[in-house]
């Protein structure tokens, strides 16, 4: 991998981790009600965001994201402060205007469709954007991700089934980020195999599995899978094994839970390769920490929704 890219990935991973930590601090200080996010998924989620064909409309990629995908939109260019705004529930929150939980993203100009909490429903809405893209042609694809436990919902099977109809295959990249657990329930208790990507087999869907703690392996796996989906206009199911570093959410304390830390592993590797010294890495962390400190101060000054904001945007009215 090009060293410049390797370092850029690292920088966004740090940005993302620092942002999540800032979000947790805000929540703990009473500047937000609930945290859920993606520490431990950066090594996969950042390459994903960097590889997205970003834009609006079916010529570009659609993203149907899980609630641990902030790192992906930051890799696409979302500023950390926007995530803080959603934590604070300010009216300036660009994703939901203070209505939704942190990490529930929506970015119309980049085809990031409304993020919801309802596990796995994104796997059926993704069918529709992919269907439009199939008709549109070109190289835009639909990307959908979700957790391991969520694959138990029928919507996961629906996505496999609909995307592989003969002669009507869909350009859709299905991703399962497997952290081995859903809230408190170990995957091994409720699923007969950790190889969830094999669910693709009976549908004749190409599939693969990658160490989602390794940014370079993730980059390569994503590049390959995306190239296939973009050009063959067929589905691909990619499983990425990741960590859930700070637990499920603030409900479980947002505390370190153990598991491999992709960021420190990556920093050790970059140090080995002579690309980044521990001191340099520490400086990058510090730079983002400062950036986030300022951002928090800014956000705390921003206005909150008022009573009138309850009733806006129930129905869309086209501009005259």
């Amino acid at each position, binding site marked *: 991998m090009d060293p410049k890219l390797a370092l850029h990935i690292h920088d966004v991973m740090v940005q993302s981790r620092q942002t999540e930590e800032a979000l947790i601090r805000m929540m703990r200080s009473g500047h937000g009600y609930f945290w859920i996010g993606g520490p431990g998924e950066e090594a996969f989620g950042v390459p994903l965001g960097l590889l997205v064909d970003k834009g609006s409309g079916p010529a570009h990629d659609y993203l149907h994201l899980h609630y641990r995908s902030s790192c992906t939109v930051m890799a696409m260019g979302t500023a950390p402060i926007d995530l803080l705004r959603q934590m604070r529930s300010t009216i300036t929150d660009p994703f939901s205007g203070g209505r939704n939980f942190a990490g529930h993203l929506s970015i119309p100009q980049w085809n990031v469709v409304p993020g*919801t909490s309802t596990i796995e429903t994104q796997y*059926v809405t993704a069918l529709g954007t992919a*269907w439009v893209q199939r008709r549109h042609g070109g190289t835009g694809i639909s990307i959908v991700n979700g957790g391991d436990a969520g694959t138990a919902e*029928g919507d996961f099977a629906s996505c496999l089934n609909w995307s592989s109809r003969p002669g009507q295959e869909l350009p859709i990249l299905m991703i399962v980020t497997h952290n081995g657990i859903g809230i408190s329930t170990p995957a091994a208790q409720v699923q007969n195999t950790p190889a969830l990507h094999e669910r693709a087999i009976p549908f004749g869907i190409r599939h693969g599995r990658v160490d989602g703690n390794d940014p370079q392996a993730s980059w390569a796996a994503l590049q390959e899978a995306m190239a296939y989906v973009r050009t063959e206009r067929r589905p691909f199911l990619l499983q990425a094994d990741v960590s859930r570093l700070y637990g499920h959410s603030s409900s479980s304390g947002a505390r370190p839970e153990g598991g491999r830390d992709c960021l420190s592993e990556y920093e050790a590797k970059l140090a080995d390769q002579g690309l980044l010294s521990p001191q340099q890495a520490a400086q990058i962390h510090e730079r983002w920490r400062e950036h986030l400190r300022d951002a928090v101060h800014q956000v705390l000054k921003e206005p909150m929704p008022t009573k009138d904001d309850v009733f806006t*945007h129930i*129905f869309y009215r086209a501009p005259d």
Partner: protein
Amino acid sequence: MANLAQAIRLALHYGETHLGVTDIFGEDVGPPLGGVFTATQGLTKTWNTPLDERGILGMAMGIALAGGKPVAEIQFCDYMFNALDLMKLAGNAHWTTNGGWHLPMVVMTPVGAGIHGSIYHSHSIESIATHLPGWKIVMPSNAKDAYGLLISAIQDPNPVLYMAPKALLRVKGDELIPGEPADERELHRRIDAPLGDRSGWTPNWPPVTDFSVPIGEAKVCRTGDRVTVVGYGHLLPACVRAADVLAQEGIACEVIDLRTLIPFDLPTLQRSLDKTGRLLLVNEDTEVTNFGEHLLRKLVERCFYSLQVPPVLLAGADVPGVGLAWELERHSVPQEEDILAAMRKLATAGE
């Protein structure tokens, strides 16, 4: 005159040729069948889906998100209950994203009893659907409105639920849809698929227009000053017939076809009730937490001091299903004679 199924087909034809409808889909919606009620025969944007209502609604939402204009069908509303979370998400997307996204999509589904459909093909869904914010909801009771409301539903940039009263799908209208041939045999020859092999058949569409029935406007079908009768869909024609019977006896009832359930035409209802002081609400959904009770509350709130007698809801019996045997259906779903009796009783109550 066109029947309701033909009217829907004509509107979809207009939709796919003039209004940008990109997809009309659902179970058995495409060729060869063209819908279990023939409503989607001969169209060009139709296709058959897997037997999976969640996939159907997800697909519709995704198409709408990506700039398409989908019309999705749930084959019977009875089969929507495994996917109400998706209906909720479609209804909330504009609001949850603070205006970021909106979903221009139509979901069509046949509703109600009246075809000996038994437990799983007689359900109504309006009481639950009206409880899902963010949806506009319409239900025609005649062919012309079936056409005009579907045109409006397609033109609307929001999710619209279009309920088709299945007992009326074969009922002919008494007003021509603009552009419809005056001779109904001609219409039949032009747009009804032949029985048997249809592979060589293509329809010869009449030049229908963008005639629409605005969402939110009720229609006063009969005027009167004795009782206000509010209905929609399947039972509306029975309300009108009952009113005509009473009119002969000198009892003039005002029959209002709601047509749009959300957002409904409160001013028209209120005006009528302030005049009559007597209210009968009619629908066939089961009576506990019934949409008619919402209408009733709003009208009691606004017209309390006009009310002369307690308002009445005539709705489906609170039982787990519409039974197949005729006596079971007859006593589960309001019939014309029940409506007539209720109107008569209300007209003379308290006197």
